[in-house]
């Protein structure tokens, strides 16, 4: 491996890291603005013009708060919890293909940090590991409400991972590859998977809502029953990490939804462009899809009320998994028929 490639990838990692954090920061701002819009209010408008410095003010406030660790807690695990949450939210961005190849100084630069041949499974793996952040944090707090929140979070995430995995397998069967880049390139132009797999998309989207702990599935931090849920005992930037991880994972899951069902960086009429124009336009197309889905996440949060826990389990196990499995079977049959195996 030559050093040029390492430097190129390091720069790419730096850019993606900054962009993820920036988008997560401004997602908190837009969440408040969208909420205000839905409730016919103005929203934050004091810090800077239209309140665009509000995320900075929030960040400074988080840093300035007293960093408190409960005396009967498991100190190391208490610190580890938010760290794992943040780490698992950020690491998935490593394998997302952000656009067509750029050409800089005569050499082609892939806008993707690592093109694993198991890309989509890597995301499922990171997702399943992401539970530990919440579980460890909730348990180490030594507070019954935190523990309830942690247990709710883990049972919810395990339940919805199954339906999510089955719907991902459906897409993998259609593409014939686990690599995210192959999945995106298979949907060239307007040939998006959503037109072939609308049911699969709905299942995946509902699961994505549950996996990111967003309303209407935000039972792990259900204020009316659990005070604050798994982060009741947290303060200062540790709390900030938990809250921030939610927004980062919202960004990443919007990106995954765009890749799996809405063609990733493909856009209609992309064959008329080439070279760097195409690369930049594809990145723009990808990010506009991501922003749209972040907005949909917020839209749902401020429209739907929270589920009850038994309803959540009922939906996950008795509705989504059978639907996903039947959809998988039908897809398999159609593929087999198309290839003439019968």
């Amino acid at each position: 491996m030559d050093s040029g490639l390492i430097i190129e990838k390091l720069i790419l990692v730096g850019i993606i890291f900054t962009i993820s954090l920036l988008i997560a920061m401004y997602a908190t701002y837009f969440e408040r603005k969208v909420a205000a819009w839905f409730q016919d209010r103005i929203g934050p408008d004091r810090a800077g013009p239209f309140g665009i410095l509000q995320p900075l003010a929030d960040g400074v406030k988080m840093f300035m708060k007293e960093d408190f660790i409960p005396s009967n807690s498991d100190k190391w695990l208490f610190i580890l919890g938010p760290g794992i949450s943040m780490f698992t939210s950020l690491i998935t961005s490593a394998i997302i293909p952000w656009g067509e190849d750029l050409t800089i100084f005569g050499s082609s630069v892939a806008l993707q940090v690592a093109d694993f041949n198991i890309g989509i499974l890597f995301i499922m793996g990171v997702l399943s590991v992401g539970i530990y952040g919440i579980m460890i944090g909730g348990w180490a707090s030594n507070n019954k409400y935190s523990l309830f929140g942690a247990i709710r979070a883990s049972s919810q995430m395990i339940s919805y991972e199954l339906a999510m995995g089955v719907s991902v397998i459906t897409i993998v069967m259609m593409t014939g590859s686990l690599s995210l880049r192959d999945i995106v390139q298979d949907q060239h132009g307007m040939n998006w998977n959503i037109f072939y797999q609308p049911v699969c998309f709905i299942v995946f989207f509902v699961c994505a809502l549950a996996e990111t702990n967003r309303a209407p599935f935000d039972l792990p931090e259900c204020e009316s029953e659990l005070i604050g849920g798994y982060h009741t005992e947290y303060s200062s930037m540790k709390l900030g990490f938990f809250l921030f991880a939610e927004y980062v994972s919202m960004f990443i899951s919007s990106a995954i939804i765009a890749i799996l069902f809405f063609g990733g960086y493909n856009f209609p009429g992309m064959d008329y462009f080439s070279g760097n124009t195409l690369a930049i336009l594809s990145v723009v197309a990808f990010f506009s899809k991501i922003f749209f889905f972040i907005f949909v996440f917020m839209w749902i949060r401020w429209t739907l009320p929270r589920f009850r826990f038994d309803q959540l389990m009922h939906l996950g196990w008795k509705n989504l998994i059978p639907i996903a499995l039947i959809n998988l079977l039908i897809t398999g049959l159609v593929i087999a028929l198309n290839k003439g195996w019968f």
Partner: protein
Amino acid sequence: MTLEMIAILLGGLTIGSALMVVLSKHPVRSVLYLVVTFFLISANYILMNAQFLAIVNIIVYAGAIMVLFLFVLMLLNLNKDSEPITSIGIKLAGIIAGGVLLTVMLAALKDGLVITQQAVGSANNDGLVENLGELLFTKYVLPFEMSSVLFIAAMVGAVMLAKREKQIID
């Protein structure tokens, strides 16, 4: 040289964290060390060019089974006071049983050691998805299907246990 160094380092770390599973006093910490061990085992798989096995190991063991372990331990809230006092006889039986298991494992893995050394760093692509799928559906199709039958049996058993008492949830 670097590859061998990494292999040795990883092996040492794996054994170290596996030892910590046994040596930790607190059950929750033991489980967390076990999770770390699974991650290190996955790293070993990647070193042998078996990415698919590595990631499936993480999804299934670290992501699902260990979460359930942790789940149960957190609900039970075990600590030193509630730990049952074991008699010397049981401890002795444990030592003997563990020793026998170790001997059997060592005997079984003695031949495996040679193969592993060949696999590390070589262009062995058996672990990649396509090759693994082909092997599973041709050479190893019978064991593969048999294990799925076993899984169904286990699942039916779990459903039977859960359904033994009539429960009305709705």
